[in-house]
């Protein structure tokens, strides 16, 4: 257990946590209510949506790839699950969440097929998959907001709480703990990182690299779908393009968390911090009623500053 933790926690991955604490302290000077329990638990609840997406993205980025199909896997899962509940059929309502997860896994497998078998760069293939899903959604809903509603289970997953902690946060952390165990303790986790470092060498050591790629993309798809289901529960509906604003913050959360975009190095502990940091940053900037323009500028500048700090620290250490 201790070994698992010490391997998952690195100095890089602590950075966003320090950043988040700094944000809370700085924010509390302007708005004391930032320090209230209500505000902070609400942030944990909201961070879970971005966090789940970033969890899936971390797995794919560790592999040395990237998944740009997140927005429409999320939207598709939300549309699918709310439509199934919207039929009013109790059996379909119960199956809504599993069906959405299966949908995410299926898209993940399609992503993996293009990347592992056809050897298409993941950045382009997942982009193409994203636009096909967009097309399917438009065809299916006629371009209007899809009809349907969230089941009580989906609402509870997004807005419920257990012992004062938001259920969405607990689900997110549970997924992260499970996946961290997989990453650190199973062969799959080792293969994943070693493919990120050097795919050829991993293949030559007898690892079936395509199956690792398939599994990684399937996990990422399921994480995106889970995020979509919970967002639909949060908003009590699905809507077109609900995933689009999440794509870039997702990648930013992973990278701020110390995971190398080239693959191989990093982990989920940092990603949790990254998602918390970005959620807090967005929230505090909007609490301060800063306009859209400056919010974008400050957001970009702070991400750049954190990245520069990370590389400068490494440069000094060498």
């Amino acid at each position, binding site marked *: 257990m201790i070994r698992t933790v010490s391997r998952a926690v690195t100095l890089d991955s602590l950075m966003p946590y320090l950043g988040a604490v700094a944000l809370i302290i700085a924010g509390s000077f302007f708005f004391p209510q930032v320090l209230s329990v209500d505000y902070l638990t609400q942030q944990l609840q909201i961070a879970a949506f971005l966090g789940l997406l970033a969890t899936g993205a971390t797995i794919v980025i560790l592999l040395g790839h*990237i998944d*740009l199909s997140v927005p429409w896997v999320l939207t598709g899962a939300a549309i699918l699950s709310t439509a199934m509940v919207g039929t009013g059929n109790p059996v379909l309502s119960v199956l809504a969440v599993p069906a959405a997860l299966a949908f995410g896994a299926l898209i993940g497998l399609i992503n993996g097929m*293009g990347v592992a*078998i*056809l*050897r*298409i*760069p993941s*950045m*382009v*293939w997942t*982009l*193409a*998959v994203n*636009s*096909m*899903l*967009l*097309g*399917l959604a*438009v*065809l299916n809903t*006629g*371009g209007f907001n899809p009809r349907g509603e969230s089941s009580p289970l989906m609402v509870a997953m997004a807005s419920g709480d257990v012992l004062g902690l938001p259920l969405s946060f607990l689900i997110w952390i549970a997924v992260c703990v499970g996946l961290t165990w997989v990453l650190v303790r199973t062969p799959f986790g080792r293969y994943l990182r070693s493919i990120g470092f050097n*795919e*050829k060498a991993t*293949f*030559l050591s007898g690892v079936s690299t395509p199956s690792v790629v398939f599994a990684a993309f399937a996990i990422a798809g399921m994480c995106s779908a889970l995020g979509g289901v919970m967002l639909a529960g949060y908003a009590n509906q699905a809507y077109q393009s609900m995933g*689009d604003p999440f794509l*870039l913050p997702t*990648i*930013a959360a992973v*990278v701020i968390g110390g995971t190398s*975009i*080239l693959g191989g190095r990093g982990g989920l502990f940092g990603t949790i911090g990254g998602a918390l940091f970005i959620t807090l940053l967005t929230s505090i900037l909007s609490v301060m009623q800063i*306009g*859209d*323009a*400056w*919010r*974008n*500028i*400050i*957001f*970009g*500048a702070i*991400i*750049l500053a954190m*990245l*520069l700090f990370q*590389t*400068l620290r490494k*440069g000094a250490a060498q």
Partner: protein
Amino acid sequence: MLEYAKSNRREVIAAAVLIVLLATYLGTHPRGASTYVMTIWANQCLILGLAACAQFFAVVVRGIDLSVGAVMALTNTIASYLLDGSAGGIALGMIAVVGAGALCGLLNGAIIVFGRIQPIVVTLATASIFVGLALLLRPTPGGAVNYDLADAMTLDVLGIPTALIITAVVVFAFWLPFRRTGLGLGLYALGSSEQAAFQSGIDTRLVRLAAFTLAGIFAGLAGLFYSFVTTTGDAGIGPGFTLNSIAAVVLGGVLLRGGVGSLVGALAGAFILKTIASLMFFSGIPSLAQPLFEGLILAGAIAIGGADVLRARNKLEVFK
């Protein structure tokens, strides 16, 4: 000629696909191959074409530029302030617009080279900054561009769409001579193998800086031309162009791992992408199904590009 076709296989295939698509488009268009149809088609193609050129310069040095759309939005909003008034003022304004694009590219390059951060992450962050600046300039779409100038740039000269003439200028007056210069070769050297380039005495930092600055210049040109077509400034145009520019360069045979492809290919890829979209419009496919077909064709085209895998003689060849 055959030798040329062989050594530029990717560009030749892209060009052939483009010609077939264009012929189909003109054949199905209710108004046929008129100058009017060609002009609208060429304008749409050139906007994405210039964006794809920007993406090409980042990709050829084994980078990627996620800020192409954001730089376009920023230069578009700048253009909506500067491109109206006296002739001299407009001329200076055009230089300022492209210069702003160059500065954005230089900033990207400087952070990538001196901060030693991956291009994808740097441009992700700077894109947010550039969009923010664009929103500062134009919180809501508006502004104006001199109509005479816009007409001159987006209509036709003696029946030939101006956009096609600009494309020809970019290829023949800029790209073909540029590819033979030291910098042009350096881009390919750096993209193929940074270590080998460094050891042959190429200043890799300078070349990478130049590549991203060129990307910024072309993104600025794309923003400028976009302003001529729409004659307003809009800070929200970015996201679609960034992702489409990546798809366009890949369709045009530029490899994302760097060092392979050409500006001509990038342009051809962009033209193919836009022609497919225009074809959809007149194809008789129900409008709701069009986005799906566009996605399917994009995926199909990319998958065919990936069919090189089938020619690998040894399984290890696919791990490049």
